[in-house]
């Protein structure tokens, strides 16, 4: 009888794993379908068969029948759609890892000051014309300033033990500081620069090109794979510092190392897109309500949900209006209500 009971536990565990994997695959398929539909959407009329003809021609390197339509699909629509998926995925993975790492449900690239740092770096380039790296422009400025909160945390950890609370307070206070400095710059900026900075501050996928996309994809893929490999480690780290130590994790050092890794990924994304808030915070929580807190399943689930959220937000921002509606605004507008609905609806407390 004991043997039977044992296999029952094993069976129920495998059943649960299967359910989670199925959910993740389902979301991935949904994401692909939305993506396939999204390329056919837009103010310029291109039929669905034409769109896929164009993409197929691009893949096999054939000349286009209709150059205008090809321009719209290949240069305008596809980069945004791919950008939305990759950036949404990467930001959500970063948020998930940060929340486990810092044992804080509010941790994400925004509250850790990464996004605000990038915003300030960009403002510096747009308004004052200051480039930290000659020829590096907005992107490198943004990247360097996005890394600053983590660098300061690293520096502080040399003098005292870097606890999760210290890290998140440090990140949040730098977020306020960077935001204030950016506001200060915006007061003195001339109107043209101001609208560029403003657009950047709320995040946009409009300006992403294939070159940018390649960099983001490489960094995001590498980062996501590493986070996935570390998933069990993150689980243990989330269960308390002393427990983690006695389960074999050198918690203080490893927390800093993983934080650096996540910061590089998040900083790369926001350097190209500007500040897209909310995906990194909301996607992990939504995924957590559905697949639970085991990072082995949570990381991919949150990533795919983040990709889907940003993709839908971008579709909305392309279709709803003729004026420029930055995707960051839409993410918050869609994500906020979804989030609140899920908080109210979930009978169990997902976080306490």
């Amino acid at each position, binding site marked *: 009888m004991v043997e039977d009971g*044992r296999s029952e536990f094993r069976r129920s565990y495998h059943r649960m794993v299967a359910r989670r994997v199925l959910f993740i695959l389902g979301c991935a398929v949904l994401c692909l379908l939305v993506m396939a539909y999204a390329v056919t959407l837009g103010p310029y009329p291109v039929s669905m068969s034409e769109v896929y003809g164009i993409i197929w021609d691009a893949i096999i390197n054939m000349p286009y029948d209709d150059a205008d339509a090809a321009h719209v699909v290949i240069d305008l629509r596809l980069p945004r759609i791919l950008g939305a998926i990759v950036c949404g995925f990467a930001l959500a993975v970063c948020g998930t890892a940060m929340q*486990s790492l810092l044992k804080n449900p509010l941790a994400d690239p925004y509250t850790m000051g990464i996004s605000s740092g990038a915003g300030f770096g960009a403002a510096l380039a747009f308004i004052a014309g200051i480039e930290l790296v000659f020829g590096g422009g907005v992107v490198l400025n943004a990247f360097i300033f996005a890394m600053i909160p983590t660098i300061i945390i690293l520096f502080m950890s040399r003098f005292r033990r870097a606890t999760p609370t210290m890290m998140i307070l440090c990140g949040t206070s730098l977020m306020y500081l960077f935001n204030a400095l950016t506001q200060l710059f915006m007061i003195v900026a001339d109107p043209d620069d101001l609208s560029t900075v403003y657009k950047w501050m709320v995040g946009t996928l409009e300006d992403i090109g294939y070159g940018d996309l390649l960099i983001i994809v490489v960094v995001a893929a590498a980062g996501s794979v590493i986070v996935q490999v570390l*998933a069990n480690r993150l689980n243990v780290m989330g269960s308390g510092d002393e427990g983690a*130590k006695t*389960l074999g994790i050198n918690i203080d050092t490893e927390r800093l190392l993983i934080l650096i890794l996540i910061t590089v990924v998040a900083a790369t994304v926001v350097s190209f897109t500007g500040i897209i808030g909310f995906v990194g915070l909301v996607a992990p929580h939504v995924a957590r309500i559905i697949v639970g*807190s085991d990072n082995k399943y949570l990381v991919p689930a949150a990533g795919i949900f983040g990709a889907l959220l940003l993709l839908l937000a971008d579709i909305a921002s392309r279709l709803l209006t003729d004026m420029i509606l930055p995707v960051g605004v839409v993410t918050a507008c869609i994500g906020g209500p979804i989030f609140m609905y899920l908080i109210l609806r979930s009978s169990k407390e997902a976080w306490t």
Partner: protein
Amino acid sequence: MTRLEVSGLTFGYGSEPLLEDVSFTLDRPELVCVIGPNGVGKTTLVKCMNKILKPWSGSILLDGEDVRSMSLMGLARRMAFVPNRIDSVFRTTVAEMVLMGRFPHSEWATSDHDLDVAEEALEATGLEGLSHRDINELSSGQMQKVLIARGLAQEPDVLILDEPTSNLDVKHQMEVMGFLREYAASRGVIVLMVCHDLNLTAAFADRVLIVHDKGIAADGKVWDVMTEENIMRAYGVGSRVIDADGRPHVILLPEVRG
């Protein structure tokens, strides 16, 4: 048999040492209880042994190897720690928490062997029906059992527990203490626990250490250590120790003061 040797251990949080030149050896598979008044350094002592805290001086040898030179992962495969409580921010199921105990043995994948070990730990602590419950919904006593199960799933040679019975009712206290004593003997594991309950210690411990005045004030079998003089010296309270079915039983006497 595993041998754990603490010698010349000195540690303090400020400039004054809390523990000074503490030495003792554990080399038998038995239940060892560490008792002593509040703030005397019982928990500190055990946390110095598993590298949570770094001793000022002295050494802890596990089978002759200094734990300082062992990796945390290497130590975690041999020595488990059951904290008194943990704060879990996110929803974690009992099964997930117990499976974390397998982390030092199989870092990424969860094998069928891991599941078997985890299930055995759940059965040993009477948690089998709760395996898919969120730990944040459990009572503090059930939570303590989950942490014990996680320690068991680690399959250690040395199991260290920090007041594992503090939130349990009397029935479950007795069950857990009886289980730990039996587990030590049957698995050949050294079980070292910090305990606050004198009578629970007296009823179940194979060996008792009293921590008092920066060091070990008494060390030995229950009848030798749980005496009226030792209790007066360590706690400053009067007591009478009687024989209850062959085990000492401490009756505290409020009017007698040291």
